[in-house]
């Protein structure tokens, strides 16, 4: 009898004490106190504007007068208007230059050097290759505008080697303006990719290469079966960073070409700016902004998925 009352009262006692004051509530409060300032800044200047962007994207609004609900019309324009489609296409063409050239050259350098770059040579390499990362993209744009100018270094070089007929005003050329802009991006991102990949390759155990050679691998096999898998993460980083830079390009294009000739080098970032602040089509600008954001996410998701660390 006594035993039953004892065991009967015990769980009750525990149950009444279960919602414990210490730990749960106070800890949560302290946690929020630490997180709140950042959360407020983030909410105020990222989340709220983002939601407003979504809201604007359904409006027909010149930014001053009365706004009208416009349904999905803005989005439909984005995906059907030939100019806007070309502009989005331009940004994907830029990916070819921004991403493929730096990553390709980076892989070539890394797999050739395959060791840590120390000493004065290493320091010089690091310093110089990182210069474009430190300067504003605007400066890169100005520098290259000058390089591509009719009396600039590129043409000077072509004339020196006797290719006078190739010389031209590159950034005003309908065919070559976009590749020229792309090369500016490649120039900016090259150093970063090289250094990331060279650092990455030094982390690959050298005995893997020796083992591969003993297994009869040639240089290509080594690259294919040792270097590439070993650098998977670093390649992922390079590709992700460069894709974002290409799709969200603004500064370089704004300075170097202003989007011209025609709309040959216009990219979504520049078009958003123009639509919103020059053409006063806030709704369409916002729809393009949302589409751009989604395009960035869609483009890097597979990269992240393919190169993430397998646990």
């Amino acid at each position: 009898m006594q035993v039953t009352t004892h065991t009967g009262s015990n769980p009750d006692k525990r149950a009444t004490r279960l919602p414990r004051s210490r730990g749960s509530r106070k800890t949560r409060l302290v946690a929020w106190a630490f997180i709140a300032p950042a959360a407020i800044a983030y909410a105020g200047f990222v989340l709220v504007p983002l939601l407003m962007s979504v809201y604007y994207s359904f409006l027909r609004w010149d930014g001053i007068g009365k706004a009208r609900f416009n349904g999905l019309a803005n989005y439909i324009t984005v995906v059907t208007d030939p100019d806007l489609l070309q502009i989005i296409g331009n940004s994907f063409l830029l990916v070819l230059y921004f991403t493929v050239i730096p990553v390709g050259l980076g892989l070539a350098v890394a797999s050739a050097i395959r060791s840590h770059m120390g000493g004065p040579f290493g320091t010089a390499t690091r310093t110089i290759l990182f210069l474009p990362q430190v300067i504003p993209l605007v400066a890169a744009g100005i520098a290259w505008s000058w390089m591509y100018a009719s009396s600039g270094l590129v043409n000077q070089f072509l004339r020196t080697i006797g290719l006078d007929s190739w010389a031209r005003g590159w950034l005003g050329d309908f065919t070559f303006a976009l590749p020229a802009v792309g090369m500016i991006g490649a120039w900016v991102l090259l150093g970063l990719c090289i250094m990331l990949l060279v650092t990455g390759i030094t982390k690959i155990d050298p005995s893997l290469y020796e083992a591969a050679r003993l297994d009869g691998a040639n240089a290509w096999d080594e690259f294919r079966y040792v270097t590439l898998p070993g650098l998977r993460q670093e390649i992922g980083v390079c590709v992700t960073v460069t894709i974002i830079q290409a799709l969200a390009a603004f500064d370089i294009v704004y300075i170097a070409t202003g989007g011209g000739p025609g709309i040959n080098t216009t990219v979504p970032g520049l078009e958003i700016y123009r639509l919103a602040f020059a053409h006063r089509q806030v709704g369409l600008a916002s729809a393009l902004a949302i589409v751009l954001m989604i395009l960035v996410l869609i483009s890097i998701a597979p990269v992240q998925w393919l190169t993430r660390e397998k646990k």
Partner: protein
Amino acid sequence: MNAKLQSLLARALIVILMGVTLLPFLSMFSAALAPSGTYPYGLQWPSDPQWINFVKAFEVANMGQLLLSSTLIVVGVVPVSVLVSTMAGYGLAKLTSDKYKWLYLIFVAGLTLPFEAVITPLYYEVRALGLLNTRFAIILPLIGLYMPFSVYWMRAHFLNVPKDLTEAAQLDGATRWGEFWRVQVPLARPAIMSLSILLFLWTWNQFLLPVVLVRDPMQRTMAGALGAFQGQWGTDVPLLCAGSLMILAPTIILFLLFQRQFVAALMQGAVKG
């Protein structure tokens, strides 16, 4: 033997790439020394180097005022962003359970957000706040826009700090706030340094926000001012080149002085994924 040849080839390739990297700067430098108003060649040592161009550009660009403006903006953005994100990183890594993972995920959701995606509403928001054409139009939004990366960065750091240290501090009598300042922040110094360098660079070089939100170049960042400078003097190549180089000089000098820290920060910063 073979390896040696390969390494030599790699070095040759690197030297070429270094050359390509440097050429635009050299070309600008040579043009900057040509007589103002002329149309020089890409790379050519001028017969009569016009060093005066730099003095002229300094005055025309109002470099003193520009430096001040950029510095004010950096001072407004970087310390606040670093402090606020360090606190949040600590809070997310050490004070919350997995139940609050969603909060962290909301923060990192902004990692890939292009600034262009929010620039339009930011304009109206800043205008509503009455901050248009002031430095706060750049400072406040930048703090918010840096949060995803900064919080992600600091949280990653705090996740690697052993739990034992927190507990030891608790037993030693530290409150959460005391532990944060006396134990966690001193330990986080390297992470905080790198973050500060990155935020400094990104702020100094920020272009879109100043162009949209601040009309007066004297209230802008260096990059924003450079854009205005180009618009104004774009046709005078020697002056433009001299001005651009001068506007670049502060960052490049800082970079050369703290080369190791900058490179480390930029490399780690890229790995954010």
